[in-house]
């Protein structure tokens, strides 16, 4: 997909308006996955806005987000960065062969106590 279309698709699907962002960084400051992310929530907002999307699509940051909504509820401008991150992730995993979780490995990941909830949620977030 051409970059401009991709940008529009990601924004439309997320329902987020990145132009509302005032770049205060509060979303990244509160993000529990901050240390593990190469691109942080406020960078997702900025980079989607400017159409710099490829690096985001290739980044492991997409799979570090916990969907905990801390950035959503703590953003003073109501930008909802988590929804943009999810939308970028969907642009990746909806492509053929781009599932993030290899289902063959699941038996090795789980143990006796692991709740089903962990598996279904991971499949929903990581795979299509």
């Amino acid at each position, binding site marked *: 997909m051409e970059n401009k279309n991709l940008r529009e698709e990601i924004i439309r699907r997320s329902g987020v308006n990145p132009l509302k962002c005032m770049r205060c960084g509060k979303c990244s400051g509160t993000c529990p*996955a901050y240390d593990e992310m190469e691109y942080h929530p406020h960078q997702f907002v900025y980079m989607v806005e400017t159409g710099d999307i490829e690096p985001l699509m290739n980044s492991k940051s997409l799979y570090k987000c916990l969907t905990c909504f801390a950035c959503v509820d703590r953003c003073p401008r109501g930008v909802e960065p988590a929804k943009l991150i999810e939308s970028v992730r969907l642009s990746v995993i909806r492509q053929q062969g781009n599932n993030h979780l290899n289902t063959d490995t699941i038996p090795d990941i789980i143990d006796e106590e692991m709740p089903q909830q962990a598996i279904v949620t991971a499949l929903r977030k990581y795979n299509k």
Partner: protein
Amino acid sequence: MKVSYFPGCTLRTKAKQLDKYARRAAEALGVELEEIENWQCCGGAFTTSTDEIATKLSSVRALNEAKVKGQPLLSVCSACHNVLKQTNDAMKNNADFAFKANNYCEFEENYAGETEVIHYLELLRDKIGFDKVKEAVKNPLTGKKVAAYYGCLLLRPGKVLQMDDVENPTIMEDFIRALGADPVVYPYRNECCGGYVVMDDKESAKKKSSKVLESARLAGAEIVLTACPLCKYNLEKSGMDMPVVYLTELLAEALGVKED
């Protein structure tokens, strides 16, 4: 009082105690739980993307069944509650999504978010009343220092979940007080346990859950209370020495209906 009940996949398997004690305590408090017929897994997480329809239909069906019965829809698992509540909000406020979902489901009458979605804690606070819960307590947990763990799913997004103040919640602390115990408030009570990321990166989840338990320990907690099977799993796997208990189990204990 009768309410529709959505147990969810994990309450049938790895979190049977969460379900069992929820049913027992409800009975002791005079509430009848009518299980949704043929309910299907909520999927564990709500996909925020507006173009995602199929993954939300199991929730729409459960919501509609409760509507037809004229009952609120209750769940105990934080994740089920979160997904049902967010799906209901989308059915109410996103016309495009509601149109497509209704087209798939073909209900007799279109579903438009009419059902009241409540978490077990809200049943206790808003339908029964914590004062009534307190009166029904047979074994008060006097002196027990209990730390409520909200995590993320019970409260956020606050705009939709509307259970409590997202940064200064009190519902679980009030619940703990009703049981006669002492609530312990600590900074990480509404931070994420690591969630489903445990499937991708166990160390990453462990980092988050040990921060939560360390925070509770420093505040003087003896036990940590949760409504979420995945929170319980992650917290227990953190390797910290702190018991993590389902809130329904503590409730059943206080009401004197825990033992068979």
